[in-house]
């Protein structure tokens, strides 16, 4: 794969800042960028840079690479996107909705399937918030992790791997036609959900690292103690053997003293080396706006008429499940009973 990742990153960067790149040789580009346009020739090949000192290297640790990373991480911290390009035929989803949801009325004379009228679907703006967190755990080594946590602003639930979907869609800076916002939850709720998710992740991560550091510390400490204890024993033996030789005894005593200091310092080093630290920072936020199609449905039963929003999600290509009023879990089946409305699970358990 070679330096392909870096090559793609550089091209994306220059494109994002509205510059231009041109491949002039294998692994070598001319780059035009900046408000007062700067022209640079950059390469991923050390041989090319050696041949021509005007060519700048673009490799980790190089000046240009570091400056691009600095600039790219300073940009794009607070972003919004409007997804577009969904092929939705409202008539089709109107038809599909009936097959996906099931409403059953339990009357005295038995169960009867309710077939509510599904009004046409209208687009509403929905949001998903993605918070990118960078975590650094430090023991004797440094380890970084990057987490992109996406939360559905309607339900405050985590959407795993949502960022993987994003490249499949067309991104706009606003909708071509305005559509109303759907009723969404308070920002604090889903931000809190993201933080709680991160706390869980960190708990697992830190516990693992802590254990690893503890094991290494015990091993290292054991090794050092054993080593110096054996050395000390050997010196004690020597002392016994040289008991009559005052000069030799004094020399061994001096060595013993120095050795004890070394032991103390080595143990102190280990204690310091495996001290654990951790930090987390919120590095970027993305608000993804996308149209969902909503049909406001009335479901009449022998007991009551309930109102539901049936939502077609074009990102995941599915209808969003309804919430069971009894257990609050999600379900596509609701049973209307004298005792209340229950999903299939609640119904079986009742």
């Amino acid at each position, binding site marked *: *794969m*070679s*330096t392909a*990742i870096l090559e793609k990153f550089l091209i*994306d*960067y220059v494109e*994002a800042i509205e510059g231009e790149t041109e491949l002039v040789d294998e692994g070598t580009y001319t780059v035009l960028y900046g408000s007062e346009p700067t022209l640079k020739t950059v390469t991923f*090949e*050390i*041989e*090319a840079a050696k*041949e021509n000192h005007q060519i700048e290297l673009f*490799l*980790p*640790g190089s000046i240009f690479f570091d400056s691009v*990373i600095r600039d790219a*991480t300073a*940009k*794009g*911290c*607070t*972003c*919004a*996107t409007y997804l577009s390009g969904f092929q939705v035929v409202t008539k089709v989803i109107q038809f599909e909705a009936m097959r996906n949801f099931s409403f059953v009325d339990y009357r005295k004379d038995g169960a009867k399937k309710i077939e509510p009228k599904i009004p046409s679907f209208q687009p509403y703006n929905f949001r998903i918030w993605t918070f*990118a967190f960078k975590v*650094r755990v430090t023991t004797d*080594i*440094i*380890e970084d*992790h*990057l*987490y*992109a*946590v996406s939360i559905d602003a309607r339900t405050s639930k985590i959407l*795993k*791997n949502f960022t993987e979907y994003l*490249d499949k869609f067309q*991104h706009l*800076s606003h909708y071509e036609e305005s559509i109303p916002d759907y009723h969404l939850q308070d*920002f604090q709720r889903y931000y809190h959900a993201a933080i709680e998710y991160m706390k869980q992740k*960190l*708990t697992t991560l*830190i*516990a693992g690292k*802590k254990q690893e550091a503890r094991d290494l510390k015990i091993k290292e400490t054991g*090794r*050092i103690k054993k*080593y*110096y204890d*054996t*050395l000390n024993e*050997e010196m004690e033996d020597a002392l016994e053997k040289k008991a009559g030789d005052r000069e030799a005894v004094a020399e061994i005593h001096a060595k013993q003293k120095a050795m004890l200091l070394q032991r103390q310092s080595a143990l102190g080093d280990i204690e310091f080396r495996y001290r*654990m*630290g*951790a930090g987390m*920072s*919120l590095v*970027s936020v993305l*608000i993804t*706006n996308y149209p969902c199609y909503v049909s406001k449905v009335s479901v009449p039963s022998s007991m009551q008429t309930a109102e539901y929003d049936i939502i077609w999600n074009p990102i995941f290509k599915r209808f969003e499940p309804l919430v069971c009023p009894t257990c609050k879990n999600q379900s596509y089946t609701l049973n209307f009973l004298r005792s209340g409305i229950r999903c299939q699970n609640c119904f079986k358990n009742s």
Partner: protein
Amino acid sequence: MSVEVLQIADIPVSFSSDIDLKKLIPADKLETYQLFRLNLEAHKLSLLPAFDTLLSLNLSRGIIPFEHQINSVKKLLGRFRGRGMLCDEVGLGKTIEASLAMLELITRGLIKRVLIMVPPSLIEQWKEETSFKFNLEFITSDDKEFKSHGSAAWGKFDRIIASIHTAKKSPHSDAIKQEDFDLIIVDEAHHLKNANTVGWKFINSLKKKYIFLLTATPVQNNLEDLFNLVTLVYPGELGTLKSFKKNFVSAGDRLTPKNYEQLRSLLGELIIRNRRATSDVKFTKRYAKTIRVQLSEQEKALYESVSDVVRNQYKGSPQQVKMSLRILQEEIGSIPPAAVSTLESLKDKLPDSAQIDGLIEQCNLMACSEKVEVLIDVINKTPDKVIVFTKFRASHTAIMAALEKHGIRYSPLHGGLTRHEKEKSIKEFQNTSKALVSTDVGSEGRNLQFCNHIINFDLPWNPMKIEQRIGRISRIGQEKEVHVTNLSAKDTIEDHILYLLDAKINMFELVIGEIDVILGRLDEETDFETLIMDAWTKSPDTKQFESEITQLGEDLLAAKQKYSTLKNTEDKIFGDQFNTTTAEKTATEDAEDEHRDS
């Protein structure tokens, strides 16, 4: 900027953010998705993930590391925390492993200053590998610029490849001890087997955050060797020398360990040893053929005249003149025109300049050597494409002229070409030419495994350089048997070197890397080419030189046999327990989840 502290698993975790979340709605003034993606990618590129994700794999060039090499790097950096011994059997790529691990530490910003110490014969090889395969530029202690700074050079440069023989000597050793190198790599570390030597004491005294010791033969004469090497990496890991001997060395047999299991368990924490038998590295067979060329009377007489000058002037000459005389001897062993420029440079430095003038004239007149004729014949009789290697540009020119004359299509490759011209030449050779005429410098960093036949028009005196030539085609991706044809003029030094390396120890069929181990056992302090030159210059006549060579041959054979015996012993000590052909399961499910999340 907001900062708060979260208490997680009893560890205070600082949580900071530059983002004012309250200002995010309405979203009109926010940046685009493209910039969000870029921001995320930039963070990923500057991330320091756990060592089970290697960043260096994306940055190395032209190599696809083997699984055992990748696992070795993960183990060395992850479990061993960057202090360990790479003791793979020869031919499995310890240099690749060490360089990948080094690149990994550099990429993560964990190290800046690196000192690689190697035997003198391997300096150029390391420089080439680190530059071409890993995009890492090093200065060598042989470099003029380095030397111009005296011992201050050790503090001036961040990445140095040095001869360990130079480094351990004063005033260099004192200067190096003052420096803080982040990573120390010692290749052929078995030379540090003895704790009473200057070399061992020197390495032990260095300040180092990370250290990699590389050797295929950690046990040289007895188990104490192993103890001394381990102590350089982790003092105390094997206890004190006295306790080590008591616990692990059989009485009366210093090569046989006792308490195998306990010893293996201790060594398992710092030694990586992959074996060819269990690795996925497979090479095709190699065949070598030597053609001894009978020089014309005139050319032979010229060879002897030049050799006499070398012999007579070598002893007592200043070092620089000695160096030139050695080069002259190598050049005349190639073809006479190759010697002209050195003879010219020596004219003012040697007593009899008229004699040198005469030799220059004769060399110029003898452009068409017998060897060139034989080369043409060999190329014509070979159905495959061939790479003709020569050490010298003058020989390169003469070979090209001869090929031209005989209508043989060829492509040139030498250090004077630009990167582009080199690539073009190689492509042309691959597609249309019959021969690639290359100098050693020209072929640096190039993989030429689409060809399976090389001809050594002349022979480097340094066997490592011969291996490098073979290594251009005998490498991963080579599907055919490899053929090496050596040309040597009868009764020249090269002729004798070939006798030693080919007839005596069968070097051309050894695994790449083994010759180095064998030569290391022959003489630790003096390189092979110096041994040859010394034998040549101290012998008054050919008979005496032959006797010296015979003795050297016996020593070489003994070294090869000793190597073979020790290999068996090492197999007994290490077995297959230290190989990394199967990855350790270091990644937790949670880590996998994280990867997916991000």
